[in-house]
């Protein structure tokens, strides 16, 4: 079984680097980037099974990327986890409304992240049904 390809997009290099290390250790095939453009490029190349994206990316924010991916039939089934540094509940609601499959509020622990990923896998079948 090949490893799941997970793309991390976060402007903070420390978070991106650490998450890459940790998730690789968890058995994912991880690529980290700091830009939405690069992320979209990888997705278009078919190089992603799962996306972990920060809501506050420069130029094009994470929620907007999420909406764009979910609007495209080719990518709408790609599970997306949005990470947000905002404490406001409205941010979670908005991200969910625009297609995020899970929202993680910073700071979170590895356990939180693993929990979200497990839930996503369980929900994959449901997402497929929606499509």
């Amino acid at each position, binding site marked *: 079984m090949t490893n799941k390809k997970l793309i991390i997009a976060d402007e903070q290099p420390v978070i991106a680097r650490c998450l890459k290390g940790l998730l690789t250790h968890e058995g994912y095939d991880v690529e980290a980037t700091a830009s939405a453009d690069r992320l979209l490029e990888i997705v278009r190349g078919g190089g992603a099974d799962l996306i972990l994206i920060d809501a506050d990316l420069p130029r*094009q*924010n994470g*929620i*907007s990327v999420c*909406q*764009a991916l979910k*609007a495209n039939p080719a990518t709408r089934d790609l599970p997306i986890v949005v990470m947000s540094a*905002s*404490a*406001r509940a*409205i*941010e979670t*609601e*908005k991200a969910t*409304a*625009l297609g995020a499959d899970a929202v993680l*509020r*910073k*700071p*979170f*622990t*590895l*356990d939180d992240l693993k929990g979200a990923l497990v839930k996503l896998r369980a929900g994959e079948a449901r997402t497929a049904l929606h499509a």
Partner: protein
Amino acid sequence: MLEKAAERWSLRLRIFLFFALIAAGAAAILCAAFFLLGRELPPSAISHLALYGGGAGFAIVGLVLWVWIKFDDHVARPVEALARDLHAAVHAGSEKLPDAERARYLGQLAPGIVEASQALQETRARVDTAITNATARAERQKKRLETVLRDLQQGVIICRLDHTVLLYNRAAQHFVAHAAAGAGSAPGGELGLGRKLTSLIARQPLRHTLDRLTRRFEGGRYLAHHDGLMAPFLAATATGHETMKGRMSLVLDEDDASPIGYVVTFDRVTEELAAGIWRERLLQDVAQDVRNHITNLTMAGELLLSGQPLSDEEKEQARATIRSEPRILGERLDRLDQVANDIFAAAWPVAPVFSATLFDSAATRRSEDRAIKVEQRGTPVWITCDSASVSELVDRIMNRAAVWDQVRDFRLETERNGERVYVDIVWRGQVVPESLVEEWLREPLDESLGAMTGRDVLTHHKTDLWCEAVPESDGDVRIRLPLAISSDLEDRPAKSSVAIPERPEFYDFDLFTRHPPGALDDMPLKALSYIVFDTETTGLEPSRGDEMVSVAGVRIVNGRVLRGEIFSTFINPGRRIPAAAAKIHGITDAMVAEAPDAATVLPRFHDFVGDGVLVAHNAPFDMAFLKKRQADAGLVFDQPVLDTVLLAAHVFGRADSLTLDALAERFNVVIAPEDRHTALGDALATADVLLKLFDLLEPLGVSTLGDAIRVADRQAAIRRKQSAY
């Protein structure tokens, strides 16, 4: 003596006496002449002489009588009539002009008087019209001012220098009532005309501020002072439950020579202050806490990285710390974020607005003059927001969407979701990309809102908006804007439960000039404050277990019944109400089941009475019930007491009926049938009767409280004697 009596004689009588004197004098002279002549003439001529003399005498008297009749008719009577008419015209304002025809023999006198009367009437009419107009104008302006003052959101209280309240408005009354309710005492009625403000608001700040202002005035420093005769102050209510941020201004007399009182305007800042203090504490706590948790994290990290040999337990502890600390830090940061949001939102005026109103204003705004059609759907709800900026934002979004998606027809809808409501702008078309929505939100809105952008409006409202497809629809999309529902709207009537009548007696500037109180007994009756009250009971015998089921009172200050300052409550008597009693007052066991008991009600009523005079119709009866329960409540009703039955007995005598109904009828005091035999209805009627009695007592020499108590005591003594027989 005669001269004095003559002064009181009428003109006609005097003229008559004058002619009578002429006639009598002429007769006397004639008699004397004939008497002297008779002595010179032979006796045979005497009989002729007497005949001619008598004839001449009668002729002269007849002539005088005839002249008098003519004179009376043509001069004396018309002069008296003219004088009467003139008197009536001058003093009683009669409009009847003097009859010039009757006085035609008086030359120019009658026409002159008629002209003078006409001129007087015309002048009087002009003055009357001017006064009526001026009064109406003043009354209109007064009403407007009353309305403004009454509905002002700020509390306003005007007091004399001795802190006696002369004016208060609705906001001030609510503030005090709210404070009292918070302290568990009587809601409402505490703030009243003629009461001391110092009994409601902490004495020290009031006195201190007044003292400062008085000294500033006396030293003349106010002329150059930045704040003039005003000083801000912060004070708590006497109960300590509410805090107010106020300003005090001195009121000077007409000559600006000395202060006669002060105006206090204030805002309730209890929540603001509490929130401020809470935020301050929270910020301190959180900052301190965050430092501790970061230290924990650092130490755990340092320990793992130190390279020294660690036991498995130590390693696991350090890992657990690293895993748990971020969660705690996250919680602390959430609280900080909440404080930041609150501070931001507090500076922003939000108020409940009906969604239909909000939509109407967004739909009719037409800022960009596009042919957009707007339809409203959904159940209208009350939304807490700043309607100006939100409707501007909704209008802006519709205009942008109209251009981008080439649409004209929009629907504005509401959808309730818990404590929030979604305001949806719906149309048939495509989902607007989030990045474009963000662009729209970055544009400045209307100029009148300054350089504010849509994003600023959303931040102020602690919300956001986004575009999404409407689920289960035929190609509809919506921009969804979550806003807060006005959940406190249901609380609003409760807050304003203190009823203020449409035109309440909420001010009385005559109190400015009221004489300072001397000994209570020597005070003029109308200058005192009264609490006219009535009780309804389970029966007539307090000594045999009968109890109060209701007590109500109304205040009279400066000779006016203050219908805005009433006390009225049911009392749980702790026993059954006999059917016979319930038949009279209509109060049943069920109605008093939830009511407080006498021990709870009496302290509130005692506060309401204050240092006023207690008045009741057949006061011994009501006082017996109050006194029966006063010990339970730990207080004494030792105020002076007046009884309208005894006062009426002094005025009308004991033969007349002195029931409340009989007195009310005599004085044209109307008691609605449904109010008769309710404590409040009877108290109000008794209050009106009392004021009418004061008017009748004064001519009888009863003008002070001492006089009134003396005559009442005398009547009571007479009654006791009568009943002894």
